C-alpha cells in the first residue's frame, strides 16, 4: 500500500529525514517511535504534503501512485489521513459543516454523488458513538475552545467519517489522560480492517498497549535504525532511548 524508499527531506537548510525506507501493507499497524527531534513528526508532515518541508531525495508510492506528486488535498482524497498533533482552530466553521464539506469533496474526487443531509446525519450519528463524541461539540466552531482530549477525539471522529486507507496518528497520545487515551485508541481499533493500515507515531509505549502494532520501527536522527515486533516497544520502554545509542556505539550522556 505504502512504499517509502530512501526518503530524504529538510526544512529550510536543516536535513531532518536522511533516508527512510518503509513498507506498509493493507491490514497492518506500524508504530514509529523515537526520541524528540528524531524526525517522527516530519515524516508525518512530509507524507501529508506540508509545504514547509522539501523532499530532497527518495520516493513514496501510495496505492500505485507517486504520493509526492500529489497536492495535500489529493493525498487526502486518495485516502491518506493525518491525525494532527496540534489540531487547528477555525472560528465560525462548525465541525459538522467542515466534515460534510470534506466528505463531499472526497466523494466528488472519486466520482460519487454528494451525500444528502439525511444520509450524512445518519452516518455521523453512527460514527460519533465510536469515539464517544457529543453532538453539542460538533456544532461548535472547529476545535475552538476544545480541550486537548476533545481535539484528539475530534480527529479520530473525522477519521471515522472520511474512512482513510492509511491513517497516520501523529503523537495522538500527547496531552491525553488515560481515559481519553483509551477512548481514542478504541476508536482507532474499531476502524481497523483488512483493507486499511495505520501508522502510529509516538514517543511513549503506552499508546501501543491499546493499539497493538504488528511492527515497531525506531527512528533516530532521521533514519530507521531498528525494526521489530511489539516487544521492541516494551524493550524501549524498559531501557529508554539510551540503549539505541549504545547499540549504535554512541556515547551516552551521564
Amino acid at each position, binding site marked *: 500500500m505504502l512504499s517509502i524508499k530512501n526518503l530524504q527531506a529538510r526544512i529550510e537548510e536543516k536535513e531532518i529525514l536522511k533516508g527512510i525506507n518503509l513498507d506498509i501493507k493493507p491490514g497492518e499497524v506500524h508504530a514509529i517511535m523515537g526520541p524528540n527531534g528524531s524526525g517522527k513528526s516530519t515524516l508525518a508532515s512530509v507524507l501529508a*504534503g506540508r509545504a514547509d518541508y522539501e523532499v530532497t531525495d527518495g520516493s513514496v508510492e501510495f496505492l500505485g501512485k507517486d504520493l509526492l506528486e500529489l497536492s495535500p*488535498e489529493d493525498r487526502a482524497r486518495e485516502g491518506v489521513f493525518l491525525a494532527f498533533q496540534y489540531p*487547528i482552530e*477555525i472560528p465560525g*466553521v462548525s465541525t459538522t459543516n467542515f466534515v460534510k464539506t470534506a466528505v463531499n469533496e472526497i466523494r466528488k*474526487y472519486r466520482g460519487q454523488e454528494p451525500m444528502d443531509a439525511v444520509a450524512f446525519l445518519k452516518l455521523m450519528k453512527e460514527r460519533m458513538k465510536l469515539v464517544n463524541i457529543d453532538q453539542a461539540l460538533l456544532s461548535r466552531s472547529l476545535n475552538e475552545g476544545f480541550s486537548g482530549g476533545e481535539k484528539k477525539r475530534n480527529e479520530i471522529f473525522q477519521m471515522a467519517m472520511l474512512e482513510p486507507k492509511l491513517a497516520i496518528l501523529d503523537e495522538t497520545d500527547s496531552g491525553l489522560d488515560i481515559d481519553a487515551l483509551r477512548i481514542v485508541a478504541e476508536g482507532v481499533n474499531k476502524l481497523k480492517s483488512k483493507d486499511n493500515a495505520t501508522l502510529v507515531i509516538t514517543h511513549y509505549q503506552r499508546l501501543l498497549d491499546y493499539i497493538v502494532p504488528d511492527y515497531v520501527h525506531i527512528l533516530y536522527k532521521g533514519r530507521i535504525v531498528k525494526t521489530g515486533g511489539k516487544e521492541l516497544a516494551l524493550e524501549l520502554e524498559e531501557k529508554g532511548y539510551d540503549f539505541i545509542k549504545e547499540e549504535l556505539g554512541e556515547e551516552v550522556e551521564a
Partner: protein
Amino acid sequence: MSEMLNTLEQTALSEYKYGWVTDIEADEAPPGLSEDIVRFISAKKNEPEWMLEWRLKAYRHWLKMTEPEWANVKYPKVDYNSIKYYSAPKQKKTLNSLDEVDPELRATFEKLGISLDEQKRLSNVAVDAVIDSVSIATTFKKELAELGIIFCSMSEAVQEHPELIKKWLGSVVPMTDNYFSALNSAVFSDGSFCYIPKGVKSPMELSTYFRINAENTGQFERTLIVAEEGSYVSYLEGCTAPMRDENQLHAAVVEIVALDNAEVKYSTVQNWYPGDKDGKGGIFNFVTKRGICAGVNSKISWTQVETGSAVTWKYPSVILKGDNSQGEFYSVAVTNNHQQADTGTKMMHIGKNTRSRIVSKGISAGFSQNSYRGLVQVGKNATNARNFSQCDSLLLGDKCGAHTFPYIEVKNSTAQVEHEATTSKIGEDQIFYCNQRGLDTETAVALIINGFAKEVMNQLPMEFAVEAQKLLAISLEGSVG
C-alpha cells in the same frame, strides 16, 4: 501558502453575474442639474406643490454645500451636470394589476431572480421593484392592505398618503444633513414607503429590489419606513447594475422611525457593479441610512452584506432616543480588485438604558481598501447606556489595506462602552489542515471566510442568507486560492 498567494495574484475576477442591460425605451430627463430639472422630475410625478417646494429647498441648500472629503476613499470628481436625474422605462399606461407589467421588465426581474408573479414568489416576501428612477410594481399589496400595512412606491405614497409623508419624510435624515442627502432630497425619483400600523406584526418580509439599467443616470431612491407603536417589520433590500465603463452614482436615503415598542429589522445585500478588475467603471454608492428609535423599548437592527460598488460611503445609524431602546449594526464588507469601502455606523445614545451592538467584519483582497468608520456617542442624559463593538478585519494578500476608525464620545459616567478590533490573515496551518481533509485551497478559503463572517450572516433572513453566502464566495473568487 505559496499556492494561495499564487492564486491571489492571478486575480481573475469572475464575471459579474448581473452585468447585462435590458433594451427598453426610456423616458428620460436631459443630463444636468438645475431648478428646471427638479421641477421636471416633480412634474413627471405629478406631485403636489408642497413636495416641489421641499425639493427646491433641498436643491438650493445643496448648491451651498461641498462634497465631503473625509472618507478614506479616492475617486474622480463626480460631474453632477453630466448625470441624467430621471429615467423611467416607458410603460404603456397606468397599471391596473401586476399582470399588466411590461413583459420586458417582468423578464428583467425574472432574470435577476425576482419574480413579480405572486404565485411564483415565496409567499412570505412582498417586493417593490424599482428600475432606474421609478417603481414598476409592488406585489402582495392587497394582502398587506388588509392588515393596514401600506407598502407602495414613494411616488404613490406622495399621492395617496400625503399626511404621512409630510409628517415623516426628512424627519430622520433632514434634507440639509449632508451633501448626498441634500442632493437626494432634491432629485429623488422613487423608492419604497412602508407603514406598519399600531400593534401589527408584518406576516411577510417586505423587500425592495433596485436595478440601475439606463446609461449615464444616477439612481436616487428614497425609502421611508414608519413602524407605529408595538409593530414589527423585517425589510430587505437588494440591488444590481449593468457593467459599464463609466462610473454611475447611487445616492439613496433610507429613513426608519420606530415608535414605542416597535421593531424594525433592515437587511441589505448590496451588489452594485464593482467595476472591472482594473478598477474601471462601477457604482459610486453614497448612501445615507438612519433610523430613530423614537419610542421606549423600540429596536432598529441593520444588517448589511456589502460586496459590490466601486466606492462605498455608507453608515447606517441609529438614534437611540427612547428609553430602553436598542440599536444593532451587523456588517460584512468585502472589497476586491480596486474597490474602496468606507462603511460603518453611528450609534447615538440619548435615552436612558439604551443599548447598542456593532459587529463589523471587513475582508480585503486584491488592491482594495476597506475601512470601518464608526461613532458611538453617549450623551449626558443617557444613563446606563451600553455599547459593545467588535471590528475584525481579514486581509488576503499584501496589496490591500484594512483600516479601522472608531470614534467614541462619552459624557455620562454610568455608560459602559467596549470596543475591540483585530486584524488577521488566514493561517497557512488552517489551509493545510483543510487540505489534509480533502478540501482544495479555494474551498478552504471560502469556508474560513464564511466562518469569519458567520456572526453577521446569521442575522440575515433565511431567503437572503444563502444568496449572501454565495455572493461572498463569488466576490472573492480568483482573489483567493
